[in-house]
């Protein structure tokens, strides 16, 4: 077989798999854009287009409010995780201290602990603190990300020593060095990690489901409410799901390379 033929075969395999992967996503948007009467149509192109399903979803759910709440939670979690991890990683990367290894393992080990083990006691604590059914109750328990600490630490270790040395010569303390030297150098890594954390937090479902049991205040729960009903109305359901995915897809379209590399580096999720 010639190289040319092999390239053609490669294209065919990839195109087939790629299309199979996006078809469900395409079908969601196609269904959501059909006229409410055409939802069961099977034509590949949703024509004529209509926003009827979106209007119906908006009547039923406070879509804007839900999206705003979800955004608050996702931004809060991502920014918080980034800050906490930045400080912790700085401690691990720039200092040698007693208990370093143990503390590091304790932090990285968090993802081995299944969330079912900790959810009950944490739920009780939130209840006692009066944080059930609040967005703060969703954000607070998620603020530590072991993956973020691990990634930032390995990035910080690759910063050339001369840079830090120069900062010291300038008479900067460790706090000043962190913000004027380390953070600017790490900007690309921080951006990639921020995207990863935001996407993960945006899509997170279980913790919000537990904390907001009765109020259904994020978009994921709004959709679940739709799912449970008898005789599902597919048009509005697809419209709400499509809206829930939209911010992440938009981010992905703009920053594809960073998103992909962030996911590969994290190795998880």
């Amino acid at each position: 077989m010639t190289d040319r033929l092999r390239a053609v075969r490669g294209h065919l395999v990839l195109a087939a798999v790629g299309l199979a992967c996006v078809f469900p996503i395409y079908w969601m948007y196609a269904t959501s854009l059909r006229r409410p009467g055409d939802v069961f149509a099977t034509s590949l192109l949703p024509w004529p287009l209509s926003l009827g399903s979106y209007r119906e979803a908006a009547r039923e759910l406070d879509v804007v409010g839900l999206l705003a709440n979800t955004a608050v939670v996702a931004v809060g979690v991502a920014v918080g995780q980034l800050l906490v991890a930045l400080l912790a990683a700085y401690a691990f990367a720039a200092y040698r201290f007693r208990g370093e290894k143990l503390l590091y393992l304790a932090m990285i080990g968090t993802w081995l602990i299944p969330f079912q083990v900790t959810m009950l006691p944490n739920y009780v604590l939130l209840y006692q603190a009066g944080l059930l059914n609040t967005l703060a109750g969703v954000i607070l328990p998620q603020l530590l990300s072991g993956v973020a600490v691990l990634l930032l630490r390995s990035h910080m270790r690759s910063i050339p020593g001369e840079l830090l040395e120069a900062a010291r010569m300038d008479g900067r303390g460790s706090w000043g060095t962190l913000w004027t030297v380390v953070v600017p150098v790490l900007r690309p890594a921080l951006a990639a990690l921020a995207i990863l954390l935001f996407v993960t937090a945006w899509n997170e479902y279980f913790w919000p489901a537990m904390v907001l049991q009765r109020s259904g205040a994020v978009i994921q729960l709004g959709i679940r409410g739709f799912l449970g009903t008898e005789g599902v109305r597919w048009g509005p359901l697809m419209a709400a799901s499509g809206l829930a995915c939209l911010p992440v897809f938009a981010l992905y379209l703009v920053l594809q390379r960073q998103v992909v590399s962030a996911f590969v580096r994290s190795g998880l999720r």
Partner: protein
Amino acid sequence: MTLLVEVPPPAPAPAAEVPPARRSAGRRLVGAAAPYLYLAPALALLVVWTYRPLLQAVQLSTLSWNLLPTSPATPVGAANFREVLTAPELGDAVGVTALFIVGLLPFTIVLPVVIALSARRVRGRARTLYQALVFAPMLVAPVASAAIWQWLLDPGSGAVNRVLGLQVNWLADPTAAQVAIIVVTGWHVLGFATLIVSAGLGGTDDEYAAAASVDGARPRQITWRITLPLLSPTLVFLTLMTILLSAQWSFPLVDTLTQGGPGDATTSIYYLLWEYGFRSFDAGHGAAAGLVFFVVFLAVAWVLVTLSDRLSFHDD
């Protein structure tokens, strides 16, 4: 023991610790406390949200308590653990979990290898586009993907039955529901596994294949005898991830699509644990089950990590 793909830093930099040259005792004290101050927020969160509840779970596991603040908790010793370990549903859940693992391996090993090998022949923008397409499902929120698939799998008007000309009631028939959960989970993780394999391929040395090609080896032989063995650490890693995380990956889909049913056909260990915790309203029982799971999970992870060193082929 980390199971993460850590990108090794290019060059280890010397520690940036500030040598206390001429400093007052007070400043030295601050200097010694500095790492702990930087760590303080993370440590506080770690204690409050991870290790405190872990200890509390140990304590809860010896009680019988229905979670209501008004009702008393009675100590029952090891009874919870005995009940969990002898529960008939445990065996079924282990079986379902094993089925998920085996069912997901084609999506985490076979397909990603095929895709990554094909992608080597394709360059430029087309390649980026294919990668983007394969990766997109990972970004779909679990609840949204449950909604999408419930629509696609709808027995009457879903696209799957219409396209395939079938009349399967996907989520109501035990076997069909298991297939559905595996395929939907596979759809979610395929992009991730493909990226890992591509990264692994990028890291292998092309010289071996080139040398074999000069010696007259055919492409198929090169793939099987050289490329795949060189890729084995990556494949072992993905197998390990599949074994450890299958139940976790499928969990949101099980919860939204089948709730573990029909019957117990899609109740994996992970889902069983969730049911113990929140459906049965017995905190002690749930905590005991969680701890058993945690210990077994740790042990399996440990064994797999130790094994993986022996199973992979190294080129040195």
